[in-house]
């Protein structure tokens, strides 16, 4: 019996690979709330869990059903979705919002330039997301395009489950009006994005 146990100890790995649940428990122990960053933020939702477990390559069927669920979080405003591109540019520039040292209730930015090229005038842009320069020029500003852009900014996970892009509307970062202004930045023919 003793020899059997010893044998087991030798052949079994010394530890099990940590699961998402283990990490969650660890983070609940190791983090504390600060400012608006409350502890519910270390609990993964379904999208985060599936994308972590699948290394951002979820099985197609599962992705489709979860994307459909995410689509339900988006409420599209009535009418024209093309807001003020000038305000949109300010929102795209600002990286403020949602951190533990951003005052709650203060309006946030979209951090768009952190990852995307937009206006050709801004040379300091990131490359994690695709370049959006000329976005509206190539696609026009029809109702379907407006809805797509609004929806994508509101909840990118409704279109691509494991997108790196935050769910800027669904997370409460941006208001519907701010998202409309970003739609303006991308689609308005007068916007520098479409120069």
């Amino acid at each position, binding site marked *: 019996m003793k020899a059997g146990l010893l044998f087991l100890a030798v052949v079994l790995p*010394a*530890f099990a*690979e*940590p699961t*998402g649940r*283990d*990490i969650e428990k*660890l*983070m609940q*122990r*190791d*983090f*504390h*709330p*600060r400012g608006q*960053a*409350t*502890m519910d*933020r*270390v609990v*993964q939702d379904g*999208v*985060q869990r599936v*994308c*972590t477990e699948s*290394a951002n390559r979820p099985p197609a069927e599962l992705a489709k059903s979860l994307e459909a669920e995410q689509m339900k979080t988006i409420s599209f405003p009535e009418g024209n979705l093309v807001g003020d591109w000038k305000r949109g540019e300010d929102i795209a520039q600002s990286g403020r919002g*949602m*951190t*533990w*040292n951003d005052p709650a209730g203060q309006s946030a930015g979209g951090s768009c*330039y*952190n*990852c995307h090229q937009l206006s050709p005038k801004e*040379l*300091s*842009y*990131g*490359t*994690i997301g695709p370049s959006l320069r000329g976005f509206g020029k190539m696609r026009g500003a029809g109702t379907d395009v407006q809805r797509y852009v609004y929806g994508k900014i509101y909840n990118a*996970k409704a279109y691509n489950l494991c997108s*790196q892009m*935050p*769910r800027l509307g669904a*997370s*409460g*970062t941006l208001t519907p009006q701010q998202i409309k202004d970003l739609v303006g930045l991308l689609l308005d023919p007068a916007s520098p994005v479409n120069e």
Partner: protein
Amino acid sequence: MRTLLIAAALVGAAGARAQDTAKEIQRYRDMVAEGSPAELFEFEGEALWKKAQGPKNVSLERCDLGKGPGVLKGAYAGLPRYFKDADRVMDLETRLLHCMTTLQGRTREEATKRVFGNADRPSEMESLSAYIAAQSRGMKMAPGVSHPKEKQNIELGRALYFHRVGAWDFSCATCHGDEGKRIRMQELPVLYKPQPARAAMASWPAYRVSTSSFVTLQWRMNDCFRQMRTPEPNFGSETTVALIHFITATGAGATYAGPGNKR
């Protein structure tokens, strides 16, 4: 004078292309490589290492950073590692905190009250880190990777690196996942790959030009989580140490060249 040079380097680069900016920063790095501002923190750290304080009114000079009590030569290059007396893996800052509470008899609350300083006043932890890390300069980085708890900790760090969480669904890999990507103008090292991890880890802790302050790896983890929009990690927590351990182990074998300079 130094501030002027920094300002000139940065203003000169504004409006230029990304490549030019990277070149400017490299030029600045070369310029200060001979006499880094980090040295000032090293001197301050030496004084703090030798200063008797806490209820027991003793210095940290008997602190065992893994090479025996008081041995500083090469100690940083061997961290993080498992410590039997604490039965856990510790990075430099966690170990220093351990010595402050055990040797000096200080409370955790008091010792962690101000772990991250600013341009006007560095923290005790930052200066100590500068002093201790400098004594591994030129040495091969060889964190503990063989004890079962070390292996377990590295795997934990790896899992944390890819764990998507927080208000914006980010993991470390969101920004540090693909080579050649940047946030604004900042290029981001892919820290789960040996080559970029080696280059990055060989220069921490570091003097940070943009904030004129000295920054440590615990600070780096803290500020990354802030930008990930999570709550705040506790100083020296298992989470932050596991991430530091994972990245350092990934970059093992690098020749330690710090404390360096950062953007």
